């Protein structure tokens, strides 16, 4: 079921997008930034995103899960070209965003909007709600003043805020949930095709969070939106997404349909994440950490598979060869030499003969 695309004049400029083609196509995206010591001296370069590739189909919600240092937020910014990624390709509605500049980039990016984590941080404290929601309409010169006002009222209605009560308020007069709704109203003002939500509900109370999540679902149906939903909470991501991507230290570990990833996790890190989630259905075994050690420093990631230092199944092969994502079930890819479909390698963590055995085993699978 492909969601209906809102019509707009920018379609032909953005390049024709055939049915069946992905709305967003990311290939080998790499993003770096320099880390500075206290005092400003350069401490090193972090490759926060190291060659990530995925697609988002129209009408789909892709969830991205990762903990601290996974690079998920950097990935989101890189897709938006804010700042531009170091290398890789981002094709959105048929247009290669990494090669566009200035006005053309603005035009192409019109259909991709962003919702931030901090509802108050993303609203100018000196502006009133009406001006905030109107800003994209003014920037893209949509309609005249009267038409814009009407649209602002419509948008506030859409997100569940009564216009007459809220248009004249400042952000400091709003609660967290209300401020996030204003941010969402602004984000959908231009009828985007894709909404990227970066921890958009993480700073809200549980009950308010549920309200905002329901709003996302309603907008998905009413406006035909696609989402990239980024969070550190796997249960949250799985609940809102069609497909789920798991990231660790800048690399993609696993991607697949939500149910598939949950019931049949293929990557040990996914398994560890699932095991760590404290659930309200406590079985005999409570949430335990099937993961050891601390996250490694992103400046100096481990060689080969980046997860190997904490993986209970790691062997010598994992230190030398970086695993490449391969498809083990329909639409379900994993980047691991010893995915969880197989029994654990004979001697995990460093043993010469075991390495030979496991190489043979992995060759058999691929």
């Amino acid at each position, binding site marked *: 079921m492909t969601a209906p695309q809102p019509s707009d004049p920018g379609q032909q400029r953005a390049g024709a997008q055939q049915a069946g083609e992905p709305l967003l196509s990311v290939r080998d995206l790499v993003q770096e930034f320099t880390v500075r010591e*206290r005092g400003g001296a350069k401490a090193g370069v972090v490759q926060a995103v190291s060659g990530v590739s995925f697609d988002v189909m129209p009408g789909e*919600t892709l969830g991205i899960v990762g*903990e*601290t240092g996974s690079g998920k937020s950097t990935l989101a910014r890189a897709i938006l070209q804010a700042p531009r990624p170091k290398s890789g390709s981002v094709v959105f509605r048929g247009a290669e965003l990494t090669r566009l500049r200035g006005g053309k980039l603005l035009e192409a990016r019109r259909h991709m909007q962003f919702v931030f984590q901090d509802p108050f941080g993303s609203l100018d404290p000196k502006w009133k709600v009406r001006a905030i929601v109107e800003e994209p309409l003014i920037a893209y010169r949509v309609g005249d003043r009267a038409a814009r006002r009407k649209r602002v009222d419509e948008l506030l209605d859409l997100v569940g805020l009564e216009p007459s009560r809220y248009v004249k308020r400042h952000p400091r007069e709003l*609660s967290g*949930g209300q401020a996030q709704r204003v941010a969402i109203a602004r984000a959908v003002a231009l009828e985007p095709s894709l909404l990227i939500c970066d921890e958009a509900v993480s700073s809200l*109370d*549980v*009950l*308010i*969070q*549920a*309200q905002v*999540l*329901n709003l996302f*679902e*309603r907008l*998905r149906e009413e406006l035909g939106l696609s989402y990239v939903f980024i969070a*550190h*909470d*796997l*249960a*949250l991501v*799985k*609940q*809102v*997404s*069609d497909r789920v991507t798991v990231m660790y230290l800048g690399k993609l570990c696993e991607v697949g349909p*939500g*149910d598939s990833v*949950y019931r049949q996790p293929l990557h040990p890190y996914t398994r*560890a*994440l*699932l*095991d*760590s*989630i*404290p*659930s*309200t*259905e*406590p*079985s005999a075994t*409570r*949430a*335990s*950490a099937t*993961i050891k*050690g*601390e*996250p490694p420093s992103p400046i100096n990631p481990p060689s080969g598979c980046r997860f190997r230092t904490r993986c209970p199944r790691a062997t010598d092969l994992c230190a030398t060869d970086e695993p490449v994502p391969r498809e083990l079930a329909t639409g379900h890819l994993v980047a691991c030499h010893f995915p969880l479909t197989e029994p654990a390698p004979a001697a995990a963590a460093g043993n010469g003969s075991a390495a030979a055995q496991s190489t043979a085993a992995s060759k058999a699978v691929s």
Partner: protein
Amino acid sequence: MTDALLQVDDLRVTFPVGGREVRAVDGVSFTVEPGQTLAIIGESGSGKTVCCRAIMGLLPAGTAIRGSARLRGSELLGLSDAELRRHRGSDVAMVFQDPARSLNPTMRAGVQVAEAITTHRKVSKREASTQAVELLRLVRIPAAERRFHEYPHQLSGGMRQRVMIAIALACRPKLLIADEATTALDVTTQAQIMELLLDLQKELDMALIMISHDLGLAASYADEVVVMYAGKIVEQAPATQLFGAGGAVRMRYTRALLDAIPHLDRPAHTQLPIVGGRPPDPTALPPGCSFAPRCQYAEDDCRAKMPTLAEHTPSHRWACWHPCEEGGAA
């Protein structure tokens, strides 16, 4: 009940703000047995943090605190600073949410642990350092001797929290209060820290009060669960009686919380049963049940009269005039 470790009776904490009164904690009573894990669950403004700070004597002078909180029979409320210092650290200790701000960034980690030791016991600096290294090992920090000399900014969030725990355990308190101690950590680190805390409980015969907004955390790790809303306890029961097979949540607010948190086995794109509105203004609490304005099952008696917290089934207390049916369904 006299052998309970901590007994809190009708605790009330009010702040005067600009002429009006904020009823932050409005008549809270509970007990903690030795070695027990109690979870206090609530959202912002529920009073859970204020309640425990009152017990620790961490509220600003001039706060109106009434009621009683007795640790092994001796009253903790209304003590002078000197008396509080005696209790803190040796009987009761607290671990906070944000280790980045709770640790002194200019002092080495190990030195801060050693300082905690010398505050309560007369030992030489060298002896304190040795004990500090032992504590760092106790909280499972690898390469403890090396980490002793590191500064907080050189440690990861999980490590820093372990250092905080080491500081809290310096004098083997009988009760540890963890105030949102894992909220700012990754979920895998959270699981490690929670496991550590539970193991330490067994090793040191220590009771633990965990304050959180996360019902899942309570379900997974706590023996007894207390749910707070607008300064009052609205439901209390052993975790097994609330969650999982055979568990039944009765108070409507707890039910709403349970429904609102993401569940792994929920199909994608389900519309969650939502509760509208916002938590009540603590200076103007409604006359009846504080949750009534937001509850879709509220009736007239809910709005008129405050429900009392009573033990309706053995060891399961709740405060609701129209609770959920047995079996957990609405």
